[in-house]
């Protein structure tokens, strides 16, 4: 009888071990699937937030659609004053950009956008200056 119980216990233990191993594999797989799904969701969310900040509900969109009126004329004019003072600031120096914006009454997002506008304006102006030359080259004028 005692031998019987021991054999039964050993058998039960072995089955429990097998179950635990299968459970471990199962858990690992479930973990990987859930993990990848959540990571993909988080990535999508964060990406959407940044796109939103950069383009949709951004100062850039506001500045693209802004219409000047009596109430915002001074604020509007300050954009040009700030644009004129951005050239000596390095893009990585966000503190200086923020401080300059604050001086003209802009928050951090607005300040960074105005700074970016200046950076891109320089590039656009430069590209335009080369455009005529390009057309001359393409039409054989040079």
């Amino acid at each position, binding site marked *: 009888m005692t031998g019987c119980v021991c054999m039964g216990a050993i058998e039960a233990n072995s089955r429990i071990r097998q179950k635990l191993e299968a459970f471990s594999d199962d858990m690992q797989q479930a973990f990987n699937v859930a993990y990848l799904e959540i*990571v993909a969701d988080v990535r*999508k969310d964060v990406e959407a*937030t940044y796109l939103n900040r950069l383009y949709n509900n951004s100062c850039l969109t506001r500045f693209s659609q802004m219409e000047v009126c009596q109430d915002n*004329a001074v604020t509007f004019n300050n*954009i040009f004053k700030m644009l004129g003072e951005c050239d000596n600031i390095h893009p990585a120096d966000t503190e200086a950009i923020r401080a300059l914006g604050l001086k003209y009454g802009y928050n951090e997002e607005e300040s960074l956008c105005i700074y970016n506008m200046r950076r891109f*304006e320089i590039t*656009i102006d430069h590209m335009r200056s080369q*455009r005529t030359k*390009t057309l001359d080259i393409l039409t054989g004028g040079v």
Partner: protein
Amino acid sequence: MSGFNMLPVHGRIDALHGELEGLFNDALKKERVEIRADERRAALRSLYSTGALSTFSAIRANQDNAKYITRVFKLMKAYDDIHDRIEDPDTMETVVSMGKASGFDEDESHCIYNLSRYNVAINNLNSQKVIATDYILSDA
């Protein structure tokens, strides 16, 4: 009913459950921080796209790159049509594929897209500069 006392087994299963959940959440927490940092870097890269913006800022037209410069302006114009589609999560992929179709890599495409977006804002502000001055002078 079993003659065994199953309470210790249940206790261990509960503890394991809690521990696994903790490990899972810890891993996700780290991943979230990394993803945020990654996306921030990607956003900044797409804005300043180090190589492309510097290249465009310093480019000098010559026989070899004349067509390339012309293609930049053509793509800038083409991007004007998709500015209002940016809410669509696939738009950035469209930006890249349109750039690719014109012979630009991802970095260049992002940069040209930004040139196009900022160009609209700059043009709008410039178009109203005189009106703003008028308002200010009339108030003075």
